[in-house]
């Protein structure tokens, strides 16, 4: 337990209230946040840019993951496909972060108290780490992963399932298990033709799709919550 202070004196508060809330409050009072909130047009256009980034991101993620799952382009290896979409993925992530940052500056006080926002940040961080730390490393080695790759994978799995179990409601969990089931069934159906390396790639593709979709869904849910 921590102690926070206001003009009435000290009171018991959480770690986040003591150390994270002041950051949000400080940022909210900054000139740039004030400017964003004062403008009627900045937030809507940042929302548009965020949505376009979602489209770019979806394409870049889908092309490589679909290929790893046996759909999409035929005459290429997954590594070829991933190389072709990598610049698009970088552009999408950069645009999403910049536009998302501007959107956040417009409603910091709401976001601090928004579970979907924190869920989104957690899945976004895991999705980024997973895509570059696990999936792309597997793809580059035709599905063969080293110990570090699997260690990152396990860490993300544990952390993310924990976050998901604690922070989301039955609706989100139901959707997650439906998605996992559908994708798992896809791999199961193809299991006869899959070697161990293809299997690792397929499962990584499933994780990538689920992580990015959860991030997008949680992001959309910020507005509904």
């Amino acid at each position: 337990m921590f102690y926070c202070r206001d003009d009435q004196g000290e009171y018991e508060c959480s770690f986040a209230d003591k150390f994270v809330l002041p950051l949000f409050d400080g940022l909210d009072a900054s000139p740039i946040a004030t400017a964003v909130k004062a403008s009627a047009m900045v937030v809507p256009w940042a929302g548009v840019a965020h949505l376009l980034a979602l489209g770019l991101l979806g394409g870049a993620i889908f092309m490589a993951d679909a290929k790893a799952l046996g759909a999409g382009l035929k005459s290429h290896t997954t590594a070829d496909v991933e190389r072709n979409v990598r610049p698009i993925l970088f552009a999408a992530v950069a645009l999403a972060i910049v536009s998302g940052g501007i959107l956040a500056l417009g409603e910091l006080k709401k976001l601090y108290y928004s579970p979907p926002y924190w869920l989104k940040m957690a899945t976004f961080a895991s999705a980024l780490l997973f895509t570059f730390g696990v999936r792309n490393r597997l793809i580059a080695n035709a599905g063969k992963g080293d110990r570090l790759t699997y260690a990152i994978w396990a860490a993300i799995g544990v952390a993310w399932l924990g976050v998901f179990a604690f922070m989301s409601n039955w609706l989100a969990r139901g959707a997650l298990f439906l998605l996992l089931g559908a994708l798992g069934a896809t791999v199961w159906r193809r299991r006869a033709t899959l070697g161990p390396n293809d299997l690792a790639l397929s499962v990584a593709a499933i994780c990538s799709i689920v992580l990015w979709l959860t991030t997008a869904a949680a992001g959309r849910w910020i507005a509904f919550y």
Partner: protein
Amino acid sequence: MRDFIVMLNETPWSIALRESLYVWPILEATHVLTIMLFAGTILMVDLRLLGLTFKQTTVSEMTERVLPWTVAGFILLVITGSVLFYAKPLVYYHNIFFRLKMLFLVAAFANILYFHKRAQANVAEWDLTAPPRSARISAGLSLAAWTAIIVAGRMIAYDWYDCGKLRPGGFLAVAASCPAPLAQSSEE
């Protein structure tokens, strides 16, 4: 037309949909997330036609292996979009951005027709090389049209140009088919 929309607006299912706690957000979220599949895959095909990515892939492989996913995404977008429209038909009917979006959709479709009937007709001649001007222009138009559709779609949520805020008889009020001010109370 408006009478039909008003009738649609008062059907029990329409009212239930727009007042629902979860169904409307789930439909809307599905609509938005499907952009990842639809816009993402059409973008890849357009970028290939423009010679910006997948340069070692034939155009016909892109259209045969990627476009079916685009179509699947589009079907999901039309289904969720139609149900969303049915939930608030009168609001969307008078929404200037919704009308713009439908216009851009028509333009996008005209471009698709042009591409498949004309630009793509001799694809065998340039399958692995740079597509001809007509195909590249079509790809550029496709990117522009779908971007415009996403922009207009996002702006539907804002009420800056709702009938109540427009000058009666003005250009925008006419473009949105706003009813005469007296009848406006039925809008709310």
